[in-house]
Protein backbone atom coordinates (compact mmCIF):
# COMPACT_ATOMS: atom_id res chain seq x y z
CA UNK A 1 0.00 0.00 0.00
CA UNK A 2 2.74 2.41 1.10
CA UNK A 3 4.87 1.40 -1.87
CA UNK A 4 2.16 2.15 -4.41
CA UNK A 5 1.51 5.46 -2.64
CA UNK A 6 5.20 6.41 -2.87
CA UNK A 7 5.32 5.43 -6.52
CA UNK A 8 2.25 7.52 -7.33
CA UNK A 9 3.88 10.53 -5.59
CA UNK A 10 7.08 9.97 -7.55
CA UNK A 11 5.10 9.78 -10.80
CA UNK A 12 3.26 12.96 -9.89
CA UNK A 13 6.54 14.77 -9.12
CA UNK A 14 7.99 13.49 -12.40
CA UNK A 15 4.93 14.81 -14.28
CA UNK A 16 5.30 18.19 -12.56
CA UNK A 17 8.99 18.31 -13.49
CA UNK A 18 8.10 17.62 -17.12
CA UNK A 19 5.40 20.31 -17.04
CA UNK A 20 7.93 22.71 -15.48
CA UNK A 21 10.43 21.96 -18.25
CA UNK A 22 7.71 22.59 -20.86
CA UNK A 23 6.80 25.86 -19.12
CA UNK A 24 10.48 26.96 -19.08
CA UNK A 25 11.17 26.04 -22.69
CA UNK A 26 7.96 26.60 -24.61
CA UNK A 27 5.66 28.97 -22.73
CA UNK A 28 6.61 32.64 -22.95
CA UNK A 29 4.92 34.58 -20.19
CA UNK A 30 6.69 37.90 -20.77
CA UNK A 31 9.38 39.55 -18.66
CA UNK A 32 7.17 40.15 -15.63
CA UNK A 33 5.84 36.67 -14.98
CA UNK A 34 7.93 33.67 -13.99
CA UNK A 35 5.77 30.57 -13.86
CA UNK A 36 7.13 27.75 -11.73
CA UNK A 37 5.91 24.51 -10.26
CA UNK A 38 9.02 24.02 -8.14
CA UNK A 39 7.48 25.32 -4.88
CA UNK A 40 4.63 22.88 -5.41
CA UNK A 41 7.05 20.05 -6.11
CA UNK A 42 8.83 20.87 -2.83
CA UNK A 43 5.46 20.95 -1.05
CA UNK A 44 4.69 17.54 -2.51
CA UNK A 45 7.85 15.95 -1.17
CA UNK A 46 7.00 14.28 2.11
CA UNK A 47 7.42 16.50 5.16
CA UNK A 48 8.54 13.39 7.02
CA UNK A 49 11.95 13.71 5.38
CA UNK A 50 14.72 15.23 7.47
CA UNK A 51 16.00 18.66 6.38
CA UNK A 52 19.23 17.33 4.75
CA UNK A 53 17.25 14.88 2.64
CA UNK A 54 14.63 17.48 1.70
CA UNK A 55 17.36 20.02 0.79
CA UNK A 56 19.25 17.48 -1.33
CA UNK A 57 16.09 16.37 -3.17
CA UNK A 58 15.10 20.01 -3.79
CA UNK A 59 18.58 20.83 -5.04
CA UNK A 60 18.53 17.81 -7.36
CA UNK A 61 15.09 18.67 -8.79
CA UNK A 62 16.08 22.36 -9.23
CA UNK A 63 19.33 21.34 -10.87
CA UNK A 64 17.51 18.92 -13.19
CA UNK A 65 15.11 21.66 -14.32
CA UNK A 66 18.04 24.06 -14.78
CA UNK A 67 19.88 21.46 -16.78
CA UNK A 68 17.16 20.56 -19.21
CA UNK A 69 15.50 23.95 -19.54
CA UNK A 70 17.04 26.84 -21.41
CA UNK A 71 17.97 28.95 -18.39
CA UNK A 72 20.90 29.89 -16.18
CA UNK A 73 22.29 26.84 -14.42
CA UNK A 74 21.92 27.17 -10.64
CA UNK A 75 19.02 29.62 -10.43
CA UNK A 76 16.28 27.06 -9.76
CA UNK A 77 18.48 24.96 -7.49
CA UNK A 78 19.41 28.00 -5.34
CA UNK A 79 15.75 29.01 -4.97
CA UNK A 80 14.64 25.41 -4.34
CA UNK A 81 17.17 24.88 -1.53
CA UNK A 82 16.13 28.20 0.03
CA UNK A 83 12.45 27.15 -0.12
CA UNK A 84 13.19 23.69 1.30
CA UNK A 85 14.95 25.34 4.26
CA UNK A 86 11.75 27.12 5.25
CA UNK A 87 9.24 24.28 4.67
CA UNK A 88 9.17 23.11 8.28
CA UNK A 89 9.34 26.53 10.05
CA UNK A 90 6.54 27.83 7.84
CA UNK A 91 4.38 24.77 8.37
CA UNK A 92 4.83 25.34 12.14
CA UNK A 93 3.76 28.97 11.77
CA UNK A 94 0.82 28.53 9.42
CA UNK A 95 -0.50 25.12 10.52
CA UNK A 96 0.22 24.40 14.17
CA UNK A 97 3.30 22.48 15.24
CA UNK A 98 1.63 19.35 16.62
CA UNK A 99 -0.65 19.00 13.66
CA UNK A 100 2.03 19.55 11.04
CA UNK A 101 4.27 16.96 12.78
CA UNK A 102 1.48 14.40 12.43
CA UNK A 103 0.82 15.13 8.75
CA UNK A 104 2.79 13.32 6.10
CA UNK A 105 2.40 16.43 3.96
CA UNK A 106 -0.09 19.26 4.37
CA UNK A 107 -2.87 19.15 1.77
CA UNK A 108 -5.85 21.38 1.19
CA UNK A 109 -8.32 18.89 2.67
CA UNK A 110 -6.13 18.27 5.73
CA UNK A 111 -5.50 21.82 6.84
CA UNK A 112 -8.25 23.85 5.17
CA UNK A 113 -8.12 26.42 2.41
CA UNK A 114 -6.85 29.46 4.32
CA UNK A 115 -4.05 27.65 6.16
CA UNK A 116 -2.97 25.96 2.97
CA UNK A 117 -3.19 29.27 1.11
CA UNK A 118 -0.93 30.98 3.70
CA UNK A 119 1.45 28.02 3.74
CA UNK A 120 1.87 27.93 -0.04
CA UNK A 121 1.94 31.75 -0.27
CA UNK A 122 4.96 32.04 2.06
CA UNK A 123 6.88 29.27 0.33
CA UNK A 124 6.09 30.58 -3.15
CA UNK A 125 7.21 34.06 -2.12
CA UNK A 126 10.49 32.71 -0.69
CA UNK A 127 11.10 30.84 -3.93
CA UNK A 128 10.22 33.79 -6.17
CA UNK A 129 12.17 36.38 -4.16
CA UNK A 130 15.31 34.21 -4.21
CA UNK A 131 14.93 33.36 -7.90
CA UNK A 132 14.10 36.87 -9.10
CA UNK A 133 16.77 38.58 -6.97
CA UNK A 134 19.46 36.22 -8.26
CA UNK A 135 18.16 36.70 -11.78
CA UNK A 136 17.68 40.49 -11.84
CA UNK A 137 19.15 42.33 -8.85
CA UNK A 138 21.90 44.78 -9.72
CA UNK A 139 20.99 45.40 -13.34
CA UNK A 140 17.20 45.82 -13.27
CA UNK A 141 15.43 48.66 -11.45
CA UNK A 142 13.81 47.91 -8.09
CA UNK A 143 10.37 48.77 -9.52
CA UNK A 144 10.79 46.05 -12.18
CA UNK A 145 11.89 43.49 -9.58
CA UNK A 146 8.97 44.29 -7.26
CA UNK A 147 6.51 44.19 -10.15
CA UNK A 148 7.93 40.87 -11.33
CA UNK A 149 7.70 39.35 -7.84
CA UNK A 150 4.10 40.58 -7.42
CA UNK A 151 2.83 39.42 -10.83
CA UNK A 152 4.70 36.11 -10.66
CA UNK A 153 3.25 35.50 -7.20
CA UNK A 154 -0.31 36.05 -8.42
CA UNK A 155 0.16 33.79 -11.44
CA UNK A 156 1.89 31.06 -9.43
CA UNK A 157 -0.47 30.99 -6.48
CA UNK A 158 -3.43 30.58 -8.84
CA UNK A 159 -1.62 27.73 -10.60
CA UNK A 160 -0.54 26.09 -7.31
CA UNK A 161 -4.04 26.25 -5.83
CA UNK A 162 -5.50 24.86 -9.04
CA UNK A 163 -3.06 21.92 -9.10
CA UNK A 164 -3.53 21.38 -5.36
CA UNK A 165 -7.29 21.20 -5.75
CA UNK A 166 -7.24 19.00 -8.83
CA UNK A 167 -4.21 16.71 -8.38
CA UNK A 168 -2.87 16.87 -4.84
CA UNK A 169 -6.06 17.07 -2.87
CA UNK A 170 -6.90 13.41 -3.36
CA UNK A 171 -5.13 10.90 -1.17
CA UNK A 172 -3.27 9.57 -4.15
Amino acid at each position, binding site marked *: MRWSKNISILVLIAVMIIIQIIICDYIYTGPYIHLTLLPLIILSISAEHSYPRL*ALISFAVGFLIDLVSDGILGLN*SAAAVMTATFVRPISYITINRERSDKLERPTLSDVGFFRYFRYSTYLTLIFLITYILLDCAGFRPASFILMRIALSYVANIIMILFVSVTLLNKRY
Partner: protein
Amino acid sequence: MRRNSRLIKIFLSIALFLLLEGISVILITNNSIIQKYRIMGFTRSVQSFFWKQGESVRYFLNYKKENRLLEAENRLLKERISILKKYLEDVSAEEAIAHASGTGDYTFIPATIIKNSINKQHNYIILNVGSNNGVEEGMGVITSWGIVGIVDAVSPRFSYVSSFLNTSQSVSAKIVSNDVFGPMVWTGVGNRAVVREIPIHTEVCIGDTISTSGYSAIFPPDIPLGIVTSVDEVNGVALELGVEMFQNFRALRLVDVVINNYGKEINMIENEME
Protein backbone atom coordinates in the same frame (compact mmCIF):
# COMPACT_ATOMS: atom_id res chain seq x y z
CA MET B 1 24.15 14.46 25.34
CA ARG B 2 20.81 14.84 23.55
CA ARG B 3 21.28 18.59 23.45
CA ASN B 4 24.72 18.13 21.89
CA SER B 5 23.40 15.86 19.14
CA ARG B 6 20.65 18.41 18.44
CA LEU B 7 23.28 21.15 18.14
CA ILE B 8 25.36 19.00 15.79
CA LYS B 9 22.23 18.37 13.67
CA ILE B 10 21.53 22.12 13.43
CA PHE B 11 25.15 22.82 12.59
CA LEU B 12 25.19 20.15 9.87
CA SER B 13 21.92 21.49 8.42
CA ILE B 14 23.37 25.01 8.22
CA ALA B 15 26.55 23.62 6.63
CA LEU B 16 24.50 21.68 4.05
CA PHE B 17 22.38 24.74 3.28
CA LEU B 18 25.50 26.88 2.74
CA LEU B 19 27.13 24.17 0.64
CA LEU B 20 24.12 23.73 -1.66
CA GLU B 21 23.55 27.48 -2.02
CA GLY B 22 27.28 27.94 -2.63
CA ILE B 23 27.25 25.33 -5.40
CA SER B 24 24.21 27.04 -6.96
CA VAL B 25 25.86 30.48 -6.86
CA ILE B 26 29.04 29.06 -8.41
CA LEU B 27 26.93 27.51 -11.16
CA ILE B 28 25.17 30.83 -11.74
CA THR B 29 28.43 32.80 -11.92
CA ASN B 30 29.93 30.28 -14.32
CA ASN B 31 26.91 30.31 -16.62
CA SER B 32 25.92 33.94 -16.87
CA ILE B 33 28.27 36.84 -17.52
CA ILE B 34 25.92 39.45 -16.01
CA GLN B 35 25.43 37.47 -12.81
CA LYS B 36 29.13 36.71 -12.73
CA TYR B 37 30.13 40.40 -12.73
CA ARG B 38 27.41 41.35 -10.30
CA ILE B 39 28.28 38.63 -7.81
CA MET B 40 32.01 39.23 -8.25
CA GLY B 41 31.43 42.95 -7.71
CA PHE B 42 29.57 42.25 -4.49
CA THR B 43 32.26 39.81 -3.36
CA ARG B 44 34.99 42.34 -4.12
CA SER B 45 33.25 45.08 -2.13
CA VAL B 46 33.00 42.72 0.88
CA GLN B 47 36.64 41.70 0.39
CA SER B 48 37.69 45.37 0.16
CA PHE B 49 36.01 46.06 3.48
CA PHE B 50 37.97 43.29 5.19
CA TRP B 51 41.20 44.26 3.43
CA LYS B 52 40.77 47.83 4.68
CA GLN B 53 40.29 46.66 8.26
CA GLY B 54 43.29 44.34 7.99
CA GLU B 55 45.37 47.12 6.54
CA SER B 56 44.45 49.45 9.41
CA VAL B 57 45.70 46.85 11.89
CA ARG B 58 48.86 46.30 9.87
CA TYR B 59 49.43 50.07 9.70
CA PHE B 60 49.05 50.38 13.44
CA LEU B 61 51.56 47.58 14.03
CA ASN B 62 54.06 49.09 11.54
CA TYR B 63 53.99 52.62 12.94
CA LYS B 64 57.71 52.67 13.81
CA LYS B 65 58.83 51.39 10.42
CA GLU B 66 56.48 53.81 8.67
CA ASN B 67 57.87 56.74 10.65
CA ARG B 68 61.44 55.82 9.77
CA LEU B 69 60.51 55.72 6.06
CA LEU B 70 58.80 59.09 6.30
CA GLU B 71 61.81 60.57 8.10
CA ALA B 72 64.11 59.32 5.36
CA GLU B 73 61.79 60.67 2.66
CA ASN B 74 61.66 64.00 4.46
CA ARG B 75 65.43 64.14 4.58
CA LEU B 76 65.60 63.42 0.85
CA LEU B 77 63.10 66.17 0.08
CA LYS B 78 65.04 68.65 2.24
CA GLU B 79 68.18 67.81 0.29
CA ARG B 80 66.35 68.41 -2.98
CA ILE B 81 64.99 71.73 -1.71
CA SER B 82 68.46 72.89 -0.79
CA ILE B 83 69.72 71.93 -4.29
CA LEU B 84 66.81 73.81 -5.86
CA LYS B 85 67.44 76.85 -3.65
CA LYS B 86 71.03 76.94 -4.78
CA TYR B 87 69.84 76.68 -8.41
CA LEU B 88 67.32 79.48 -7.95
CA GLU B 89 70.04 81.76 -6.56
CA ASP B 90 71.90 81.33 -9.83
CA VAL B 91 69.02 82.04 -12.23
CA SER B 92 67.37 85.35 -12.92
CA ALA B 93 64.03 86.33 -11.38
CA GLU B 94 62.28 86.21 -14.79
CA GLU B 95 63.50 82.69 -15.46
CA ALA B 96 62.42 81.55 -11.98
CA ILE B 97 58.92 83.01 -12.46
CA ALA B 98 58.64 81.43 -15.89
CA HIS B 99 59.55 78.03 -14.37
CA ALA B 100 57.19 78.41 -11.43
CA SER B 101 54.16 79.39 -13.51
CA GLY B 102 54.38 76.37 -15.82
CA THR B 103 52.79 73.06 -14.81
CA GLY B 104 55.10 70.08 -14.46
CA ASP B 105 55.06 67.01 -16.71
CA TYR B 106 53.61 64.85 -13.96
CA THR B 107 51.04 65.19 -11.23
CA PHE B 108 50.45 62.67 -8.47
CA ILE B 109 47.44 61.17 -6.72
CA PRO B 110 48.29 59.98 -3.20
CA ALA B 111 46.89 56.53 -2.45
CA THR B 112 46.93 53.90 0.27
CA ILE B 113 47.43 50.21 -0.42
CA ILE B 114 44.62 48.07 0.96
CA LYS B 115 45.78 44.74 -0.44
CA ASN B 116 49.27 43.72 -1.45
CA SER B 117 50.35 40.30 -2.63
CA ILE B 118 54.08 39.61 -2.66
CA ASN B 119 54.56 35.86 -2.66
CA LYS B 120 53.29 34.92 -6.12
CA GLN B 121 54.90 35.08 -9.55
CA HIS B 122 52.24 37.55 -10.70
CA ASN B 123 51.56 39.84 -7.77
CA TYR B 124 48.95 42.55 -7.55
CA ILE B 125 48.02 45.50 -5.37
CA ILE B 126 44.65 47.11 -4.62
CA LEU B 127 44.61 50.88 -3.99
CA ASN B 128 41.93 52.89 -2.20
CA VAL B 129 41.60 55.32 -5.12
CA GLY B 130 39.72 54.77 -8.35
CA SER B 131 38.17 56.51 -11.32
CA ASN B 132 36.35 58.92 -8.93
CA ASN B 133 39.81 60.21 -7.97
CA GLY B 134 41.06 60.51 -11.55
CA VAL B 135 42.90 57.19 -11.77
CA GLU B 136 42.92 55.56 -15.20
CA GLU B 137 44.19 52.29 -16.60
CA GLY B 138 47.84 52.34 -17.61
CA MET B 139 48.99 54.90 -15.02
CA GLY B 140 52.18 54.21 -13.08
CA VAL B 141 52.38 53.80 -9.31
CA ILE B 142 55.51 54.91 -7.45
CA THR B 143 56.99 55.82 -4.09
CA SER B 144 60.15 57.79 -3.33
CA TRP B 145 62.00 54.46 -3.23
CA GLY B 146 61.09 53.14 -6.62
CA ILE B 147 58.29 52.02 -8.84
CA VAL B 148 55.44 49.90 -7.52
CA GLY B 149 53.48 48.88 -10.61
CA ILE B 150 51.01 49.86 -13.32
CA VAL B 151 47.26 50.33 -12.92
CA ASP B 152 45.52 47.46 -14.69
CA ALA B 153 41.84 48.00 -13.90
CA VAL B 154 39.85 50.73 -12.22
CA SER B 155 36.52 50.78 -10.42
CA PRO B 156 34.96 54.01 -9.10
CA ARG B 157 36.62 53.60 -5.67
CA PHE B 158 39.46 51.12 -6.14
CA SER B 159 42.32 50.37 -8.52
CA TYR B 160 43.89 47.05 -9.35
CA VAL B 161 47.61 47.44 -9.86
CA SER B 162 49.80 44.90 -11.57
CA SER B 163 52.77 44.96 -9.16
CA PHE B 164 56.35 45.28 -10.38
CA LEU B 165 56.81 41.96 -8.57
CA ASN B 166 55.55 40.34 -11.72
CA THR B 167 57.83 38.28 -13.91
CA SER B 168 56.11 39.54 -17.06
CA GLN B 169 56.45 43.25 -16.29
CA SER B 170 59.44 45.45 -17.17
CA VAL B 171 60.40 49.07 -16.69
CA SER B 172 62.88 51.14 -18.67
CA ALA B 173 65.84 51.72 -16.33
CA LYS B 174 69.18 53.49 -16.69
CA ILE B 175 72.55 53.49 -14.98
CA VAL B 176 72.72 56.89 -13.29
CA SER B 177 76.48 57.33 -13.84
CA ASN B 178 76.38 57.04 -17.65
CA ASP B 179 72.67 57.14 -18.69
CA VAL B 180 72.87 53.77 -20.50
CA PHE B 181 69.44 52.17 -20.34
CA GLY B 182 67.77 48.80 -20.65
CA PRO B 183 64.65 46.96 -19.45
CA MET B 184 64.55 46.02 -15.78
CA VAL B 185 62.52 42.99 -14.70
CA TRP B 186 61.91 41.29 -11.39
CA THR B 187 63.76 37.98 -11.02
CA GLY B 188 60.89 36.34 -9.20
CA VAL B 189 62.80 36.16 -5.93
CA GLY B 190 62.69 38.70 -3.08
CA ASN B 191 63.75 42.25 -3.86
CA ARG B 192 66.06 41.33 -6.70
CA ALA B 193 65.76 42.49 -10.31
CA VAL B 194 67.93 42.41 -13.43
CA VAL B 195 68.64 45.09 -16.02
CA ARG B 196 69.09 43.46 -19.42
CA GLU B 197 70.45 44.44 -22.84
CA ILE B 198 73.18 46.74 -21.54
CA PRO B 199 75.86 47.11 -24.26
CA ILE B 200 78.95 45.08 -23.45
CA HIS B 201 81.33 48.03 -23.61
CA THR B 202 79.43 49.91 -20.86
CA GLU B 203 81.40 50.69 -17.72
CA VAL B 204 79.41 49.53 -14.74
CA CYS B 205 80.57 49.14 -11.16
CA ILE B 206 78.98 47.20 -8.38
CA GLY B 207 77.20 49.77 -6.21
CA ASP B 208 76.14 51.98 -9.13
CA THR B 209 72.64 53.40 -8.82
CA ILE B 210 69.87 52.43 -11.23
CA SER B 211 66.95 54.79 -11.83
CA THR B 212 64.01 55.09 -14.21
CA SER B 213 65.04 56.31 -17.66
CA GLY B 214 61.87 58.29 -18.38
CA TYR B 215 61.62 56.69 -21.84
CA SER B 216 57.99 55.81 -21.30
CA ALA B 217 54.85 57.79 -20.74
CA ILE B 218 54.17 55.91 -17.51
CA PHE B 219 57.00 56.68 -15.06
CA PRO B 220 58.86 59.98 -14.52
CA PRO B 221 62.63 59.87 -15.02
CA ASP B 222 65.24 59.62 -12.25
CA ILE B 223 63.26 57.67 -9.68
CA PRO B 224 65.92 55.65 -7.86
CA LEU B 225 65.27 51.94 -8.30
CA GLY B 226 68.21 50.14 -6.72
CA ILE B 227 71.92 49.44 -6.76
CA VAL B 228 73.94 47.13 -8.95
CA THR B 229 75.01 43.99 -7.07
CA SER B 230 76.39 41.91 -9.93
CA VAL B 231 77.48 42.30 -13.56
CA ASP B 232 77.27 39.28 -15.89
CA GLU B 233 78.10 38.89 -19.54
CA VAL B 234 75.36 37.29 -21.66
CA ASN B 235 76.49 35.43 -24.82
CA GLY B 236 79.41 37.84 -25.18
CA VAL B 237 77.13 40.57 -26.59
CA ALA B 238 75.43 42.24 -23.65
CA LEU B 239 75.61 42.74 -19.93
CA GLU B 240 73.03 41.73 -17.40
CA LEU B 241 73.06 43.69 -14.15
CA GLY B 242 71.80 42.21 -10.92
CA VAL B 243 69.97 44.88 -8.94
CA GLU B 244 68.96 45.05 -5.29
CA MET B 245 65.84 47.21 -5.31
CA PHE B 246 65.41 50.06 -2.80
CA GLN B 247 61.71 49.48 -2.67
CA ASN B 248 60.69 47.13 0.11
CA PHE B 249 57.38 45.71 -1.15
CA ARG B 250 56.64 44.14 2.24
CA ALA B 251 56.52 47.54 3.95
CA LEU B 252 54.49 49.31 1.27
CA ARG B 253 51.54 51.41 2.38
CA LEU B 254 51.52 54.93 0.94
CA VAL B 255 52.08 55.34 -2.80
CA ASP B 256 51.52 57.91 -5.54
CA VAL B 257 49.67 57.28 -8.79
CA VAL B 258 51.46 59.11 -11.59
CA ILE B 259 49.50 61.18 -14.09
CA ASN B 260 51.56 62.08 -17.11
CA ASN B 261 50.05 65.42 -18.14
CA TYR B 262 51.12 64.82 -21.73
CA GLY B 263 50.55 61.05 -21.68
CA LYS B 264 47.43 61.16 -23.87
CA GLU B 265 49.19 63.37 -26.41
CA ILE B 266 52.18 61.01 -26.49
CA ASN B 267 49.92 57.97 -26.91
CA MET B 268 47.97 59.71 -29.65
CA ILE B 269 51.06 60.48 -31.68
CA GLU B 270 52.35 56.93 -31.10
CA ASN B 271 49.05 55.47 -32.33
CA GLU B 272 49.09 57.71 -35.38
CA MET B 273 52.58 56.55 -36.30
CA GLU B 274 51.57 52.89 -35.89
